[in-house]
């Protein structure tokens, strides 16, 4: 196991594309995290001018709500990491190095394991990034700081890890299926932004939530800000067990499908 991780690390550690893309992800998400408050302030100030009732000031950086707030935002950027995954898996096909890895003595299952470890590492990194930013912003902006409060909604962190990992296994599956980076990235974007939303729109309520990508993003609902409550909408501020189960189910299914592809196909 450790050996496979060692191999995987050697493949990425000096790769420029990997560092540029993950660097961009960190930079972009960092900017969003630090900048989103002023955008919200701007909007609410403008709205107050025209609104008959006064709109309350919303702070999204307060412990413990900050976790759900940041994680919800981060959910929109996980596609970046999916692109990294697709580039790395399709590279193995276009360089034919997957073939060479197996000729050299990896089993096909080993190869799958090594890629899952890569996804695990990437998801872990993304989660760690949220924790660090969350702690920094939380400490700066919260008036009420105690360990209980900070960690009271920490379950969102675990949910976020699952969200990213599930999404990345989906990307990995697409990479294994089409093998060409451009095509795979195109397909991922198309499915994520167009095909699945259309299916979800057509399907009756209740069933549509079980479409894979929808189910994965459903893990973490829209944060319940005072603003939202004012409009009268109430979102879930907890993680539902069924969502977690569905998400894990999909991850297992994607992994199994990749295993089947690897086993049946000539490499």
């Amino acid at each position: 196991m450790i050996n496979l991780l060692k191999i995987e690390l050697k493949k990425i550690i000096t790769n420029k594309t990997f560092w540029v893309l993950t660097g961009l992800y960190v930079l972009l998400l960092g900017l969003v995290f630090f900048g989103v408050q002023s955008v919200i302030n701007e909007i609410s100030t403008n709205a107050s001018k025209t609104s008959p009732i006064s709109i309350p000031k919303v702070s999204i950086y307060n412990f413990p709500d900050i976790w759900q707030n940041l994680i919800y935002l981060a959910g929109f950027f996980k596609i970046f990491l999916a692109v990294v995954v697709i580039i790395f898996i399709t590279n193995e096909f276009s360089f034919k190095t997957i073939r060479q890895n197996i000729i050299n003595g990896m089993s096909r299952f080993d190869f799958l394991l090594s890629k899952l470890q890569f996804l695990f590492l990437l998801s872990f990194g993304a989660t760690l990034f949220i924790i660090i930013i969350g702690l920094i912003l939380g400490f700066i902006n919260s008036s009420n700081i105690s360990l209980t409060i900070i960690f009271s909604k920490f379950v969102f962190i675990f949910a976020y890890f699952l969200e990213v990992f599930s999404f990345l296994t989906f990307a990995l599956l697409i990479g294994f299926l089409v093998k060409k980076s451009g095509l795979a990235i195109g397909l991922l974007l198309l499915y994520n932004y167009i095909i699945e939303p259309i299916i979800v729109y057509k399907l009756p309520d209740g069933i549509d939530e079980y479409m894979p990508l929808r189910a994965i993003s459903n893990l973490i609902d829209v944060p319940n800000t005072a603003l939202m409550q004012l409009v009268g909408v109430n979102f879930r501020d907890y993680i539902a067990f069924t969502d977690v189960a569905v998400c894990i189910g999909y991850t297992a299914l994607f992994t199994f499908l990749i295993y089947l592809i690897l086993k049946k196909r000539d490499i």
Partner: protein
Amino acid sequence: MSEVVLSLNKLSKHFGRIKAVDELSLEVEKGNVFGILGPNGSGKTTTLGIILGVINPDSGYFQWFGKTPTKYERKKVGSIIESPIFYPYLSAVRNLKIIADIKGIPYNDIDRVLNIVDLIERKNSKFKTYSLGMKQRLAIAAALLGNPQALIFDEPTNGLDPQGIAEIRELILTVASEGITILLASHLLDEVQKTCTHVAILEKGRKLSSGKVEDVLNEYGTVEISSENLEELYVTINNCDIVKSVVRQGDKLSVKLDKKASSADLNNFLFNKGIVLSHLTIRKKTLEKYFLELLNE
């Protein structure tokens, strides 16, 4: 009975309607330099793909070292396939480290193999900056990593200049002399003749013939001879029981020998009859022609 390194039993593989490998059975013994000879599309690379675990056979089975193959058997085999495959953005050393990790070999073997192929000076350069010759040498280094028990070469001299070809052939002979079993796929009769001890001839995935190189190729070989008195030679040789047929070609005789006989046997026979040959060559061109004829049947 010598130890069997690799055995193939009625292996078959088709791609669509094309039968790439058709009930192929082979046995490679320890220390053999085994050539798989056949034109392009005769199933050589597919066969190698199967025994290296990247192509699933439709039917039949194969064994490495007498065992049903797993990744552990593949770790003991080095291979050089048509084009060298490495991570282009990694240095030679990093590429070899990945292979060493996969095979479970200590890193200190890396410098040894890089020295053999004379790439030690460029070991930290990225693979994509290498010339074709260097890439091929790195592939050899990778194959030699960890002292494999068997080596597989697929068209090893493809695209190389004469010097490179000579180097590769010398390397094959050196490695073979150390007792490492070698499997070599080639479409060049000459290459198989120069390097192999055993050969199997493939056509459309089927085995046409196999055995020791001299046996198999003699079957189709001719010897060209001449002497001072061609008439006398012609008469004498027609009474020799190792000769299958004689054709007169100008001032020479083209002689087809029996399967089991060699040109030395012929020379011996004539010498005992008191005839000294002024000329004796094994017609490689003719062999090549026979090879092509064989494939055209």
